[in-house]
């Protein structure tokens, strides 16, 4: 039926829109259930990377989003690096 819609140049089926919206809203719902866990995760990631690299903590961003390629959601982190720390 969706193929037929394509022939006539109609927009995406409303069911597909519903499913996509639902998937997106559930990703944030499921994460919101664990606010504290997410804050801890963010701090731990920040700390771990800081052991090796000098990063801009204020511009550090981490979020869980739906992947376009994978079935399951992915963690997306933006970590601006200031200077690489060389260690002996």
């Amino acid at each position, binding site marked *: *039926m*969706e*193929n*037929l*819609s394509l*022939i006539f140049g109609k927009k995406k*089926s*409303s*069911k*597909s829109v*519903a*499913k996509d*919206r*639902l*998937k997106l*809203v*559930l990703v944030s*719902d*499921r994460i919101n*259930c664990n606010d504290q866990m997410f804050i801890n995760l963010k701090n731990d990631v920040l700390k771990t990377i800081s052991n090796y690299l000098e990063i801009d903590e204020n511009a550090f961003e981490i979020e869980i989003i739906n992947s376009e390629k994978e079935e399951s959601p992915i963690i997306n982190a933006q970590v601006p690096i200031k200077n690489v720390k060389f260690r002996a």
Partner: protein
Amino acid sequence: MSEVIVITSGKGGVGKTTASANIGMSLATKGYTVALLDADIGLRNLDVVMGLENRIVYDIVDVVDGNCRIKQALIKDKRNPNLFLLPAAQTKDKEAVLPGQMQKLCSSLKEDFDYVIIDCPAGIERGFKNAISGADKAIVITTPEVSAVRDADRIIGLLEANNLSNPKLILNRIRMDMVNRGDMMTLEDITEILAIDVLGVVPDDESVIISTNRGEPAVLDIKSRAGQAFRDISARISGEDVPFMDLNTKENLFDKLKKAFS
């Protein structure tokens, strides 16, 4: 082995009370003894869906407060001697029955009945938590809409957090005409999102409204397709292996043509 099963959904109006009435009646028809427990305190409705609203003397709050014995509050169904209803209180609030009291009530009912079916209130607050506290198993009911499935997801998480793991899903009010034209999510779409075992799929059927108007659960109407779906669900609850019904039986020439193009 007796079982206490809570029927819950999060969202209101998706069919918890209708499902409770139909599953209870159907299990009783199969010969099991069944107690239906309306836990929606303050918004009593299972009695009217069952057509037993004129027989209420005592309610669930009277039982937990010790104003009467359980047997005095249980209303015997007028059609089936195996089926009893413990009505909710209409004038009290959702805090009137606490989790400990609910657990005690459920274990007392388990001594006398094969199945105790609890009709849970909508929402995720105290009323929900009280209603699920005596249950051994949970059934989550939803409809193929974004809001209802979202709430079902939330409820599944809360059930698991309260030691009611592996709840089973009923997908209610599915319309195959809308599914076939791509305007309604399918069972597969919903199970992919919720990752839950399916207990049954109930077609949207006006016979449910007609039978509810009369206070007769749809399972008593042998021609009702929704009634058939609920009879199958009850058979699965009691451990029978029943295949899922073909929801596409009303396919006409136009539907076939549409399929040929897709």
